[in-house]
């Protein structure tokens, strides 16, 4: 098990210093002082959580980047810069004056975060940037980066396309601008503001030196993030929770009783408990329009600024959580309208959370056996090929969570590994086994486990697994003593964490 996922994401932004093509004069980065009063250097010291050893955090490391100064004493950065942060510091480009920063809001899916200096006057005299949402293909934007000597340089490049595509978290897709330019790779540029003239058009999401393209988190996504934060509780980018297929196939259109030649997509999956499901959307429905936006056969609509883009932009970014949206559908050929109230399902509300940052993973050690709750972050410890490489039962639980995990079950609790002691003889090879019951009590989440361990049966703790070997036993009278020994031998700070 190696932690490759983070390293790979990092490498994407910071490959070794060798852009493939020579930098032409027209697009060469230039020392740029015009923005000096609108950006601050941000240094974040981060510590990754260690899912394999859930009681520890990995060694701290720092990331640096440029934050965009916004009105109301705020600084915008990408969430990746401060992922699993311990300490965040601002530094003014001109004076070098440093100030600790408070994290106001983070959205890992949209990859944006908002900071505030500990001392409000710190940003006095700076020129906050306005956010613009009107950049389109053909516009030239400037990417600001920090040189190793702390000077700010900018590189211009044209927007070639505007589309909805994947962000850093695997199933999060939002609008992005794709720029074509040759960007110098700076280790100190984990976050880079992107300007249109002298206003903030977005933040750099990633840069590929191979194709010389930069993906930018665009103004509309930044604006959605800021608006959501301003109106009180931050909820995040909503989702409706359904999937669809194209209806280009005339045989499918006929089967679904669709009128010839029109648009509409075929609903293939409706996630239980998500907004579309709550509003009554069903597999086999044909979705014709969202509000006023007519949907074509491929699931695109006509967006005035960008032309045809996928309707998920309407769901995630043109609306906020809590907004209502009319789904115009055909069911068995009959038109209907469903009113869907969009919601954001937080990562922690998934049975298998897609990611956990900042919060440390829960665990319980009993008799030298380590029990954890499944998260996708844990599976990603197996690297980019985790879907094939990680234990397949656990992958299945992640990928099929709505089908496999039904109330009252809330989480997948599994034996992750065994810390060998005299009491674990015969069990030391056991790992990645999904726990079903302990002492006859169903284990619906990790918190159930210590409760179940309070009631041993005939002096033993019986632990049942979904897979081979199906059941093992611990001596109840010895368990506490063994755990103290484990704690001492392996220098564990605590035998459990349950939040």
């Amino acid at each position, binding site marked *: 098990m190696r932690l490759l996922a983070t390293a790979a994401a990092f490498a994407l932004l910071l490959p070794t210093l060798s852009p493939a093509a020579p930098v032409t004069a027209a697009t060469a980065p230039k020392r740029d002082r015009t923005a000096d009063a609108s950006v601050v250097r941000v240094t974040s010291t981060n510590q990754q959580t260690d899912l394999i050893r859930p009681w520890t955090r990995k060694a701290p490391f720092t990331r640096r980047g440029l934050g965009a100064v916004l009105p109301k004493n705020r600084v915008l950065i990408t969430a990746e810069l401060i992922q699993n942060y311990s300490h965040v510091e601002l530094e003014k480009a001109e004076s070098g004056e440093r100030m600790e920063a408070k994290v106001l809001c983070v959205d890992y899916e949209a990859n944006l975060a908002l900071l505030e200096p500990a001392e409000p006057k710190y940003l006095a005299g700076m020129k906050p940037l306005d956010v613009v949402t009107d950049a389109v293909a053909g516009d030239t934007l400037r990417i600001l980066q920090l040189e190793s000597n702390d000077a700010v340089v900018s590189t211009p490049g044209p927007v070639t396309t505007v589309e909805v595509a994947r962000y850093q978290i695997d199933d999060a897709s939002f609008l992005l601008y794709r720029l074509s330019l040759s960007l110098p790779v700076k280790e100190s540029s984990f976050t880079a503001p992107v300007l249109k003239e002298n206003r903030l058009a977005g933040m750099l999401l990633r840069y590929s030196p191979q194709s010389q393209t930069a993906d930018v988190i665009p103004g509309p996504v930044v604006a959605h993030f800021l608006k959501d934060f301003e109106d009180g509780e931050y909820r995040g980018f909503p989702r409706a929770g359904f999937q669809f297929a194209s209806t280009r196939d005339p*045989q499918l259109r006929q089967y679904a009783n669709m009128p010839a030649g029109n648009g509409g997509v075929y609903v293939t999956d409706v996630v239980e408990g998500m907004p579309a499901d709550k509003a009554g959307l069903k597999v086999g429905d044909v979705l014709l329009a969202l509000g006023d936006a007519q949907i074509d056969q491929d699931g695109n609509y006509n967006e005035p600024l960008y032309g045809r883009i996928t309707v998920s932009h309407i769901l995630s970014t043109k609306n906020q959580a809590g907004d209502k949206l009319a789904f115009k559908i055909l069911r068995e050929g009959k038109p209907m309208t469903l009113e869907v109230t969009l919601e954001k399902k937080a990562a922690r509300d998934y049975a298998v959370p897609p990611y956990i940052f900042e919060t440390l993973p829960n665990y319980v050690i009993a008799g030298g056996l380590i029990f954890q709750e499944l998260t996708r972050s844990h599976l990603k410890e197996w690297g980019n090929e985790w879907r094939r490489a990680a234990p397949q039962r656990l992958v299945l639980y992640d990928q099929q969570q709505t089908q496999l995990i039904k109330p009252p079950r809330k989480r997948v609790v599994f034996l992750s590994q065994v810390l060998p002691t005299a*009491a674990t003889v015969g069990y030391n090879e056991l790992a990645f086994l999904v726990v079903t019951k302990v002492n006859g009590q169903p284990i619906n989440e990790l918190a159930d486990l210590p409760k179940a361990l309070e009631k041993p049966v005939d002096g033993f703790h019986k632990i049942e697994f979904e897979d081979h070997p199906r059941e093992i036993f611990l001596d109840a009278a010895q368990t506490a003593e063994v755990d103290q020994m484990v704690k001492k031998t392996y220098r564990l700070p605590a035998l459990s964490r349950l939040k």
Partner: protein
Amino acid sequence: MFRRLALLAAVVVATAPAVRANVADVRKSVFRITNTLQAPDYRAPWNPGNIGRGVGAGFLISGGRIMTNAHVISDARFIEIEREGDPKKYPAKVEFVANDCDLAVLTVLDPSFKTGLKELEFGGIPALESDVTALGYPIGGEHLSVTRGVVSRVDYQLFSHSAVDSHLAIQIDAAINPGNSGGPVVQNGKVVGVAFQGYSGDVAQNVGYMIPTPVVTRFLKDIEDGKYDKYVDIALTTFHLLNPAQRAALGLKPDGNTGILVSSVMAGGSCDGLVQRGDVLLTIDGLTIYSDSSVQIDGERVEMPEVVERKFKGDKIDFVLLRNRQEIKVTVPLKNADPYLIQAFSYGVRPRYFIYAGLVFQPLNRNLMAAYNFEDLHTRYHYNFYVIDQLFVDRPEVIVLASILPDRVNSYMNGHRGMVVDTINGKKIRRLEDVREAFDVSAPTFVVKMLGSGRPLVLQKAEVDAARDRIRNRYNLVSESYLGGEG
């Protein structure tokens, strides 16, 4: 019997022999086997397959027969045998093949072939550290090669030919090279093993494996009745009982060293209905089962499956087991465990398939998986968990839309490649024959649904009928289906 899921990067090769005084006799009875083979193409199952050639070794045994490895003669179309120092090539044919233990028996039609040759005899299991001599025809060599090594280890080993079967194997440190498979490994003039696999040089060096005589003689005994019945399997998974708390909880002496726990019983397998999950196996055929799942036979500690390894189809095995703390005796008639075969490489069989509207339906198995390496979650689940989750009960065959031969009748269906077929017109698909039957009814429309999310595939019969010749001609389909048997 205990088929392990671990994958070995073993390259199939033969050991080279080291010769002592009486090897001169032996070497004349070691042959070079050239196999012209035709391996089926699972990506184009209607084709007869690609023709290739392989070289291995074999040796003369009782009855004028030739023993070699199954993988030496896999998918054979024409086999030639050469004797050392004789320019003539003798055509041979396969009498019996055992893909589950990588052995085969050939015969040569020309009776003059064996003139003056000694039929080699089999010895026992050679002692650790004792010298053995391997004879064979390593890479490209026309002449017999002889190398010597010592017996390094006797252990259960995954046989990479089928990739699911594990049997006793002997590790030797003689140089091992591809092309020598099937050659004898001798000691004191007797054959003590058949060289069959090794590792590629970047994994381990000086590690070669031979099939020991208990496995070879079992094969020879099995075929005495004129057919090979394959290995039988108790079809149980068991867990060692080394932990004192677990032992005590199950009613065993905490510091004792006998008994293993049954963690699952395969539906339809030998023990189905006789042994239950949670039973503790105490003895097998009167032999004490130790808690690390070993038994003692003839003074040697061997793995408990060894007892079953020596049995044949229809033989019985006696267990004494502990159920609810009561000792009971159970007699188990032994049979094969076929569900494992989904993960076994198969040889010498034509791939089965059914094509409709350019959609190629094939049963999921290791050969198909090796050809396509499917990504779809449900397909992978059915492959990986077929035995563990007993999916074979519901689906004796898992039918996959393996590929699509593009045509205007299926232009929009590409995204469904590699998915498991769930139903056709509402009828659940449990074997390939069901696909044929489902499309054989007179319905105007066929609706094919896949497992998992995805839209149904809708086919208009009239359009499919019109496309039939077009697809057949365009893709040179010799036949639109092969469902098994003759044809």
